[in-house]
């Protein structure tokens, strides 16, 4: 410390000048911190919609994998409920293999749909049962048909929906369970429904999930919140299928980096020990020898 203060550029300053500069610095730093805090705070008083609170998902933690039984149930919900209006055209049946279904099961799922293929040798298109490489079917041939069937609202493709909305799976869960009567004074147009989590509050999708609307093959009680939780987990997997691999690699990366850090720390101390302990002596030569 002593030698540092000897070289300081403020050595010649008077006491009052030092106090003045310190105050200035603290004020400038404080103002910067305040600006940053305001900028990144979640208070958005301009909007009226509710921001979904964070839920504790089974995959929330740094080392937590997806609950694959939940993905499987979520697929059931998607297939039996959501797929009536929504497409998920970036997901193939083969993606289910080793995640929520065995290969034989995924093949059976795929064979349930009919896919247009062709042309055959006569130049005609034909229908065939789905294969593992086929994508999930779309309920409407195009966006116009989808809008026409849904009062002008377009049910978005659900493949990447958790990546495309603030709040991700928290948002999907609350959207599906958040339907309620509009509060006094709020007018909702015919064909729209009140949902405080949706931007603007009036959504073109009717409430889709009710208790016992489907029966789970594994016997889990199909309450509304269970259905919403499972389909949200499934959609999270659709959007981030690499999620489990990513976290598994994180364990490996952190472990390896820790070992390397320790080794490098030792190497640095080892190499510097001789440099730091050396003394340089200078012996001026005099004219007489």
């Amino acid at each position, binding site marked *: 410390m002593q030698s540092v203060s000897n070289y300081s550029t403020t050595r010649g300053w008077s006491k009052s000048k030092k106090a003045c500069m310190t105050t200035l610095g603290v004020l400038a730093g404080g103002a910067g911190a305040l600006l940053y805090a305001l900028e990144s705070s979640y208070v958005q008083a301009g909007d009226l919609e509710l921001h979904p609170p964070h839920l504790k998902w089974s995959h929330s933690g740094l*080392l937590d*994998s997806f*609950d*694959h*039984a939940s993905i499987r149930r979520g697929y059931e919900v998607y297939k039996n409920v959501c797929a009536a209006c929504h497409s998920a055209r970036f997901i193939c049946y083969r993606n289910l293999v080793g*995640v*929520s279904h*065995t290969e034989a099961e995924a093949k059976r799922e795929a064979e349930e749909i009919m896919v247009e293929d062709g042309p055959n040798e006569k130049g005609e298109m034909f229908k065939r049962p789905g294969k593992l490489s086929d994508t999930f079917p779309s309920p409407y041939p195009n966006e116009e048909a989808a809008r026409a069937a849904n009062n002008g609202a377009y049910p978005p493709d659900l493949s990447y929906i958790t990546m495309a909305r603030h709040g991700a799976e928290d948002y999907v869960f609350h959207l599906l369970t958040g339907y309620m009567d509009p509060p006094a004074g709020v007018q909702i147009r015919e064909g729209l429904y009140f949902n405080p989590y949706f931007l603007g509050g009036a959504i073109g999708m009717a409430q889709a999930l009710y208790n016992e609307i489907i029966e789970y093959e594994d016997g889990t009680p199909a309450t509304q919140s269970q259905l919403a939780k499972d389909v949200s987990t499934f959609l999270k997997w659709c959007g981030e299928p690499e999620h489990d691999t990513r976290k*598994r690699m994180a364990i*490996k990366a952190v472990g390896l980096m820790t070992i390397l850090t320790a080794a490098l720390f030792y190497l640095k101390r080892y190499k510097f020990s001789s440099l730091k302990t050396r003394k340089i002596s200078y012996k001026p030569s005099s004219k007489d020898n």
Partner: protein
Amino acid sequence: MALGNTVYNLLFKKTSSFMLTVAVGAFAFERGFDKLTDYVWESHNKGKLWRDIKDKYE
């Protein structure tokens, strides 16, 4: 330092055996490290992974 000397003479002294030690050591380390980290992952997430539930469907 007897052990250190033996290791040095046997493994590190000749460039050829040194390179072989590096290659074999890397392989052995990787196997062990992967086993360990996969064990951490699989025991931490026991019951949630596909490998834990797939027996029900096969």
